Structures are given as structure tokens and as C-alpha cells.
């Protein structure tokens, strides 16, 4: 028996049912691909902010480097900091000059003395930022404490919301696709009752009869998955120039090359599972 050829013939003979199944599957996986890209992108942005020196501690002019180093040591001993970097007045001046090199007016009259020394602290867990900030605020030599709590918390909120919305939508669409597969393959089995009866009478095994329907579901899943990948990747490549300028300074785009085959592999695996599951249930239900 040739289950693959038989499945392809079934598809050729009833193309509209195949189009319905494949387009539903494509829609599901396009939404999944877009949400995966958005979720990964926002995770990257969040990671970027999380790994930045989120707490910056500025010290009073009279604070000596030794005093600052003792604060640094104290922080490192807590174990909750990922890194603590000391920026001396001289280094601060260099950074200032580098950032404002295109504006000579801003460079005039600025010396290392008027810039404060600082510590740039990053944490393993962004939730601990506040604790670190409170801890250093109590030090008498500290002038000011800045940290990006708001950005992180709203980014975390957004990322979580995107993940939850994405997962919910994808699950809902996956269920719909599964149902469509079930209905279409069940319908085909019903329409081919006579053919199935003939195959039974001439000695075809159960697998000989079932296999073309299972292959058909898998073809729907894989084709829908592949088309959704083509669509999502094309959309991403098309939008990349705009997104690069929109997200300037954030290390998200361009997407690394390894991401594309990985996304394709994931979508095809999910398409295979969805297609085979839908057709297996249909075969079980309608081929009794």
C-alpha cells in the first residue's frame, strides 16, 4: 500500500477541505510564531534592562575612595548583587566627555571635581533592586540613589501579559485547528465508507486503511506550519528596518540566524503533533 500517495490523492480530490484545514492551521501557527517572536523580543529587552547597572549610587564630594570601596565590599558580601562597578570622578568625566563629544559647549568648564564618584550595581533578581537601594541609602556618604525600578516592573508586567495572552490565544486556536482536522478527516472517512468497505473485503489491514487518513492530517499540520513560518519570517524581515530604528539602542534586532531554523523546527514539530493527533482521534472515532 502507498499511504502517502493515497493521502495526496485524497487532498487533490477534495482541495477545498484541504485549504480550510491548512489555512486554519496556518493562522494558528502564524499567531504562535508572532507571539513567540514578540515574547522573545520583550524577554531580550527585559534581560537587557535587568543586566544593566540598575542601581546607580552617587556619593558626596567628601566621600573618599576607601569609604566607597568599603560600601562596595559590603554590597558584594550580601550575595544578591551580580556586579558592583566603581566609577571614579575621573572615569565619570571620561564618560561625560564621550557622551557629549559632539557638543563642545557642554564640555567647557566641566572638571572631574564637579562630577560625583559612583557605584553601578546590577542584581541577580530585579525584585531585589529595592532592597539594594534601601541598603545604600542608609550610608552617610551617599548623595543620591537612582534605579530603574519602574521600567523593569512595567516591562515585566508587559512581558508576562504578552506570554499569557499569547499562550491563551495559541491554545484556543490550536484547539480550533484540532477540531477542524477532526471534522474534515471524519467527513472524508464518512465519504469513503464504500472504499473502506472494499479495502476491508480485499484483505487490507487496519493500518492500510487508517494510514492515508493519518498521513493526511500530518500533511495539513506540516503544510500549515511551514506556510505560517514563511509568512511570519517574511513579515519580520520586512519590518526589521522599521523596528531597528524604533528599538534603537536595544540589542534585539536583527534576529540571529539560528532563530529561523529553530522556529521552523518548533512549528513543524507542533504541526506534526497537531495533525497526527487530530487525524488519530478522527480515525478512532469514525473508523470503528
Amino acid at each position, binding site marked *: 500500500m502507498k499511504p502517502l500517495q493515497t493521502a495526496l490523492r485524497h487532498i487533490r480530490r477534495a482541495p477545498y477541505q484541504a485549504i480550510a484545514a491548512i489555512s486554519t492551521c496556518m493562522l494558528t501557527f502564524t499567531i504562535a510564531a508572532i507571539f513567540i517572536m514578540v515574547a522573545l523580543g520583550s524577554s531580550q529587552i527585559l534581560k537587557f534592562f535587568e543586566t544593566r547597572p540598575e542601581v546607580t549610587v552617587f556619593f558626596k564630594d567628601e566621600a573618599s575612595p576607601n569609604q566607597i570601596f568599603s560600601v562596595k565590599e559590603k554590597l558584594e558580601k550580601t550575595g544578591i548583587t551580580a556586579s558592583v562597578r566603581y566609577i571614579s570622578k575621573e572615569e565619570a568625566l571620561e564618560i561625560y566627555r564621550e557622551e557629549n563629544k559632539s557638543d563642545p559647549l557642554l564640555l567647557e568648564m566641566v572638571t572631574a571635581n564637579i562630577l560625583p564618584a559612583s557605584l553601578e550595581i546590577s542584581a541577580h533578581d530585579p525584585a531585589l533592586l529595592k532592597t539594594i537601594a534601601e541598603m545604600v541609602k542608609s550610608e552617610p556618604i551617599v548623595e543620591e540613589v537612582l534605579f530603574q525600578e519602574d521600567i523593569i516592573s512595567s516591562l515585566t508586567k508587559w512581558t508576562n501579559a504578552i506570554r499569557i495572552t499569547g499562550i491563551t490565544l495559541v491554545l484556543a486556536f490550536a484547539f480550533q485547528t484540532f477540531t477542524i482536522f477532526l471534522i474534515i478527516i471524519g467527513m472524508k472517512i464518512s465519504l469513503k465508507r464504500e472504499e473502506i468497505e472494499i479495502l476491508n*473485503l480485499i*484483505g487490507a489491514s487496519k493500518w*492500510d486503511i487508517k494510514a492515508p487518513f493519518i498521513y493526511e492530517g500530518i500533511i495539513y499540520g506540516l503544510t500549515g506550519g511551514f506556510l505560517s513560518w514563511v509568512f511570519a519570517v517574511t513579515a519580520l524581515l520586512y519590518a526589521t528596518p522599521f523596528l531597528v530604528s524604533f528599538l534603537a539602542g536595544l540589542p534585539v534586532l536583527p534576529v540571529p540566524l539560528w532563530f529561523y531554523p529553530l522556529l521552523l523546527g518548533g512549528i513543524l514539530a507542533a504541526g506534526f503533533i497537531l495533525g497526527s493527533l487530530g487525524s488519530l482521534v478522527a480515525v478512532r472515532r469514525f473508523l470503528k
Partner: protein
Amino acid sequence: MITFDKVTKNYGNITALSEITFSISQGEFAFLTGPSGSGKTTIIKLLLREITPTSGTIKIGDVDIKKLKPDKIPILRRRLGVVFQDFKLLPDRTVFENVALTLEILGEEKKSIPKKVKDILAITELLDRANLFPAQLAGGELQRAVIARAVVGKPDLLLADEPTGNLDPTTSSQIMKLLKTIHQKGTTILMATHNAGIVNEMTQRVISLKKGKLIKDEQSGKYPHKD
């Protein structure tokens, strides 16, 4: 080859077969005759294991087919060739593909299938119709295609259920000639028919049924009833 031992088949209160006993040897050609409702098709269905007897034993070779497990039924059917009155060809496959299907089911080597199909299509005079679909064939051609599908795998036994039932006398005669050729090549044939002309012309064994009972079993017999 086939043994029916006191086989009874009831459908609810209706008795389709009652205590039928007969046997058919390897290489025999036997007619199963009788009017409509006499039980001919029930015997074919029992042999195909579409249904099971209410009582009695049916053996094909040494196999008691009543005791066959469901997963062994396809294996039994692969040993049989079946010719149906209503053809039962797959409408979306060509004559060639329909015939090749039997060999595919038998697990025949892919390379040898085209030659075997062409050989049988030559015998059944369908070579020039190989690439046509069933809807494009005439009644006699359809029946020849069914016979080709049934015998291409060289079955132990060919079951023919009213193979001339839907055909005109000339075409029926061609089909019988073909079945005779197949029988001469060594295939055992059991053919259900109520066509008295064919039975009388062939002078083969005739097993006659009436209302589910075996009323006559004659070597070189004649058709006993008038429908």
C-alpha cells in the same frame, strides 16, 4: 479446501441458512445456485468472514474461520479473490491501480507489480483500458477488471457473487469464458448465480439451495429451479 459442517445462520428470527453441509476440493469449480433469498450471498459472506455462523463449522483449508481473531481476518481475505455483482472497484483509481492494489496489500515487491498487473490485464483483455477509471468502462469491462483484481494475487479460492448479474448474455458468456480459463490455470472457484443458462452450459458441480436449505449437490449438474 472449503468445508461447511452443519452451518446455520440466523438473522434474528429469520433463518438464512439451515444446517448446511458440503465441501469443495482444491481445483474444483462449483456453482452455488438458487433463487433470491436462498442463502447464496450468506455463504459468500460467511466465507469472507463478514459474518459468523450461528452454529456449525466453516473451514478454509485447516482454518476454522469462526475462531479467527479480528486481526487475522485480513490475512484470510488475502488468500481469497472476490468478484462482486456490483463490481466494487475504487472509483478514484485507474484499472491498473485497482488491480495493483491487491498486490500492494499482499506486500508484493514494488518492482514486480507492473509486470504482474500487465500479465493479468492481458488475460482479461483490458490492457488498452489500463489507464481508464471505472466510470469510463462498460459493464463487461468493469467485471473483467474486478476478476483481474481478484486473481492477480493467485488466490487459493475465487469467490464470485453473481458476477454476471448485471451483464447482458453476450458479456456474461465472455465473463464465464474468462472464469473457465482462470479455473483451468488451477484456481478453485465458487460462483453464486441464479443464471440457469450459464449453469447448464458449463456442466460443473452445482450446489442448489432453497430457503436456506441445501436441496441438491450434483457433479456436472444442471440448474434445478425456474426463478
